[in-house]
């Protein structure tokens, strides 16, 4: 039976908290009370650090087995074509080559898979691939958002397309939407009375912003190693979802779930693109079956760019109704974006959720193009939407002569974020802003090309919970402890917080906890997307650890002759008053060989707002003679409930910021309009921030107890990247007086906005 309990939620002192009454789920320990804990909430080294820094962590790329084959995929060189013929005779003659040819009839993007084959070496597989002859009837294509929207543009799909939700998207119902030409939508949503809001406004302001396609570029490309052991398919996958890969393979090969084993101990980055088995993974399993040998399929960098997902581009129009004191009365928001042959480009989440705008109307449309499918990428839609709205707010602050931060505070009802704004403003030195403006004027007069600027932007994300997560804690008679869950490590490093939670409950050193993850034979764990991993998993870990502890306490109680409630468990011993017994000794008295305790992720109970807030501040220096931007410092203040492993949370924040800066300044997929081919499917001209572009970063996490689960656990991966690009853009605006409305903010765009780019008549 559920137990009624009073818990304290909110920010830690000195901020006011509140007491609420909850129904504690049966068997679930009560949430952490406010205050420091001995292990969790602290910094410490990553448990799997030593094997990663010594090259011993075996990624999917590293799978090697005697007799294995290497696979590769034949891909379309055309943006849109009928496949007239496929001649594999040359490849078939080559030694050890197996081919999987699904006889594709139409290809809709540059890099779309046509067939796959495997051979004893990667080089041999490439030789075989080049021996396959394909003839095409090239069809008209459309590859830009603007062109594809036009009437009469070549159609990417002849029929209406149903949305296919991937595990990384925000949860939601697949919707049937109108489709005209290549435009699917609009999907309308919103809140409040927008007409009334605009009627009450004393002015309106409209901006249009655009963002470019960003590709995930995990350092380890999508890859899968497949081997059939009798009727069981065993794979190692570079994935964000051990179980989503298992379920997809089970479905494709019509196998029961117990006949598919997925291992995913180490994944070389994902960022939203690695949830399923993928066509490449299915090819690997089919080839393995055909060859009767293990097969490794690892995409090359070009395939990764072309076919393995991206953050769609966007065109966003935001119109704000406002009062002269800066209060926003309504927002009208429209977005178009292309995810190539896929859907899910909406960017309206931010405008609806981030601030306290009373009335918001959103219309989002997908535009199909002949380009590789977009997919979830770290906070889908939100960096784009944040850039649009925060650009509009910055423009409004300018118009009203208001301090940009004051304008945001005027419209921000979130108690948590108001604290975050305050902390961040202090850390970045927001009070310097007026002085910096003056110094810029002095620099300009002195002929220096360098201008400094400060900018800020808000974050918003949501707490999602993947239901069904379960954890097993095993304690052996020798005192050793294992924790099992199938979750994968894509870089967030779940081994460490899992061990910390268990170590804390059992009073053991963190290193003594043997965490076993990344295997579908362990209990279900969440896919790492939507920042759900921590929030879904940690409460189950804690429940399992508490259950194990309680069982040990029973044993200790008998040994010590005192009631369990009087026994403390710390530093490897059970103690009561003057009596004490070692952890190992208690374990040696277990009735069975192993104590097994399970913990389930209980349903959320009452607590704070489910939104994750956050505020970021950026300081930049812009060279107005060359348009080159240097980001000097980013301060990021975030809330993520009670961080279990502070080091990991800070690393996630740093990573989100660096991806955000890279998105703001560098990243852009470039497509040749005439051929429809991507021109920069590499990491040479698809530009990604590197060491010398990395600023000082100050990650700060507010001490927050949101309730909802026994660990106050929430995620951080996504909120950390939402506002960075907007904050950088606003800092550039402050530095230069221009207002960036297109990402990436390249030197070309800055020079152009500054009026320094001559028109074409120069010398032409």
């Amino acid at each position, binding site marked *: 039976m559920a137990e009624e309990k009073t818990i304290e939620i909110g920010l830690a002192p000195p901020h006011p908290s509140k007491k609420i009454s909850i129904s504690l789920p049966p068997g679930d320990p009560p949430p952490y009370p406010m205050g420091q804990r001995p292990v969790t909430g602290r910094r410490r080294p990553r448990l799997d650090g030593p094997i990663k820094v010594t090259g011993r962590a075996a990624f999917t790329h590293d799978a090697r087995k005697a007799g294995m084959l290497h696979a590769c995929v034949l891909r379309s*060189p055309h943006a849109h074509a009928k496949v007239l013929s496929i001649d594999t005779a040359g490849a078939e003659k080559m030694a050890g080559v197996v081919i999987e040819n699904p006889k594709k009839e139409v290809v809709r993007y540059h890099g779309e898979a046509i067939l796959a084959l495997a051979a004893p070496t990667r*080089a041999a597989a*490439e*030789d075989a691939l*080049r021996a396959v002859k394909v003839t095409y009837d090239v069809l008209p294509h459309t590859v830009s958002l603007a062109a594809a929207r036009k009437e009469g543009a070549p159609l990417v799909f002849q029929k209406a397309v149903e949305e296919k939700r991937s595990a990384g998207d925000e949860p939601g119902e697949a919707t049937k939407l109108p489709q005209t030409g290549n435009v699917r939508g609009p999907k309308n949503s919103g809140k409040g009375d927008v007409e009334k809001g605009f009627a009450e406004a004393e002015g309106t302001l409209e901006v249009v912003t655009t963002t470019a396609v960003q590709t995930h570029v995990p350092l380890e490309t999508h890859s899968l190693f497949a081997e059939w052991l009798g009727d069981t398919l065993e794979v190692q996958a570079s994935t964000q979802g051990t179980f989503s890969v298992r379920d997809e393979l089970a479905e494709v090969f019509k196998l029961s779930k117990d006949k598919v084993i997925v291992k995913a101990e180490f994944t070389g980055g994902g960022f939203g693109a690695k949830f399923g088995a993928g066509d490449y993974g299915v090819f690997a399993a089919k080839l393995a079956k055909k060859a009767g040998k293990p097969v490794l399929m690892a995409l090359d960098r070009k395939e990764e760019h072309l076919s393995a997902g991206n953050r769609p581009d966007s065109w966003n129009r935001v119109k704000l109704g406002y009062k002269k004191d800066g209060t926003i009365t309504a927002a009208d928001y429209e977005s178009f974006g292309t995810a190539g042959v896929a859907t899910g480009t909406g960017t309206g989440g931010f405008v609806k959720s981030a601030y306290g705008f009373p009335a918001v109307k959103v219309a989002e449309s997908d535009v199909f193009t002949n380009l590789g499918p977009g997919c979830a990428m770290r906070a889908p839609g939100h960096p784009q939407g944040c850039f649009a709205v925060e650009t509009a707010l910055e423009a409004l602050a300018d118009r009203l002569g208001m301090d940009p931060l004051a304008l945001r505070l005027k419209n921000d009802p979130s108690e948590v974020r108001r604290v975050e704004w305050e902390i961040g403003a202090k850390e970045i030195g927001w009070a310097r802003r007026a002085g910096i403006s003056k*110094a810029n004027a002095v620099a300009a007069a*002195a*002929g*220096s*090309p*360098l201008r400094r600027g400060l900018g800020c932007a808000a974050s918003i994300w949501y707490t999602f919970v993947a239901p069904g997560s379960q954890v097993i804690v095993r304690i052996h008679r020798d005192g050793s402890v294992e924790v099992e869950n199938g979750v994968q490590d894509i870089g967030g490093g779940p081994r460490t917080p899992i061990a910390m939670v268990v170590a804390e409950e059992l009073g053991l050193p963190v290193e003594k906890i043997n965490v076993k993850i990344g295997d579908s034979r362990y209990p279900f764990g969440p896919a790492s997307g939507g920042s759900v991993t921590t929030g879904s998993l940690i409460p189950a870990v804690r429940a399992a650890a508490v259950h194990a502890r309680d069982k040990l306490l029973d044993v200790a109680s008998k040994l010590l002759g005192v009631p369990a409630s009087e026994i403390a468990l710390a530093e490897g011993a059970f103690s009561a008053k003057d009596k004490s017994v070692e952890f190992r000794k208690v374990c040696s008295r277990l009735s069975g060989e192993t104590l097994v305790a399970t913990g389930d992720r209980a349903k959320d109970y009452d607590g704070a707002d489910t939104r994750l807030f956050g505020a970021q501040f950026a300081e930049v*220096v812009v*060279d107005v*003679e*060359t*348009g*080159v931007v*240097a980001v000097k410092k980013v301060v990021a203040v975030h809330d993520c409930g009670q961080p279990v492993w502070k080091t990991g949370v800070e690393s996630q924040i740093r990573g989100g910021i660096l991806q955000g800066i890279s998105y703001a*300044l*560098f990243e852009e997929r*470039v*497509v*040749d*309009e*005439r*051929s429809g*081919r991507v*021109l*920069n499917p590499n990491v*040479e*001209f698809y*530009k990604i*921030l*590197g*060491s*010398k*572009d990395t600023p000082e970063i100050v990650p700060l996490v507010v001490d927050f107890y949101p309730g909802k689960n026994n660990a106050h656990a929430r995620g951080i991966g996504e909120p950390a990247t939402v506002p960075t690009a907007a904050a950088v853009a606003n800092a550039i605006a402050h530095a230069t007086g221009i207002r960036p409305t297109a990402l990436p903010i*390249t*030197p*070309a765009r800055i*020079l*152009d906005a500054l009026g*320094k*780019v*001559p*028109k*074409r008549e*120069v*010398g*032409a």
Partner: protein
Amino acid sequence: MKSFERIQPKSWEDAALRLAAAREKKISSEAKGAGTELLDRMKEYNLAPDQVVDLRRLTSHSSLQRNSSGGLSIGALVTLSTIASALKADFPALADACEGAATPQIRNAATLAGNLCQRPRCWYFRSAEFQCLKKGGVECLAKSGENEFHAVFGNNTCAIVHPSAAGVALVALNARIETLAPGGGRMLAAADFFVRPEVDIFAENALRPGELVVEIHLEKPQGLRSAYRKIKQKQSFDWPLADAAVSWRAEGGAAKDVRIVIGSSAPVPFRAKAAEALVEGKRIDAALAARAGQAALEGATPLGKNAYKLPMVAAVVRRTLLAAAGLPDGTEEPA
């Protein structure tokens, strides 16, 4: 990459003979130094030679030799990182050009001769999926396509930019390039080594088939001043959007024999002759450097998406002149 036969010659002469022999037999063959750039093209299947003649393991032409007059001979196989660290004092333009090229890993392997002979990074040229003018196609695809990283000078035929930063410095330093070929070697002025697309659309330099670069010679006249600067979008590994090298002899406070060479802006390292003429014989100061930057734009023919490079060229010429003169350029950040 396609399978090939590796040829390990015993000497440079042997290598040249092997290349000539292959040509006679209509066997495609490529000479390879470190191979950092060659392998890139081979992996892209943009190039699939039957033979690769390895030069990397030859022992001659692999060191720096100073002569009595302060000049220098640089062996073809000397790496960029060696040049960057050894020549900072004497030839800062070349040292800085090499120091900023590519990545530390590539600079540790890549040779000076390989750097001079590397093929363009134009994305149409680099992708085997395009048949551009340089590969026997009918038109330069960049001119009417995506040309943001392409040439703003001399781009009438083909809009590549020459990728060698070292080449920009060597033209500025008036280096001579010594070659070896079965019929005898040559000595080419660096400026004559690089050829425009109008001269040879299939190559970016004057080397004849099978001819090899063996040494690069530099003289160090009294009072030599030089500098190299570049502008990049990204400060970690990235190709410059514009770069420049300058040199002159300081004579009683005036700059003599001024050479101003712009990189990343034309199919060859591009001499800004109007800017040179403006500066020649004068004392360099901030105002003159700024005027020279503007003068360097003479003859520019920007394409649809790269006119932004013009202010960059002006800026980089201004800054490089001031750097060689030891003067501040205004980008020194206040503390």
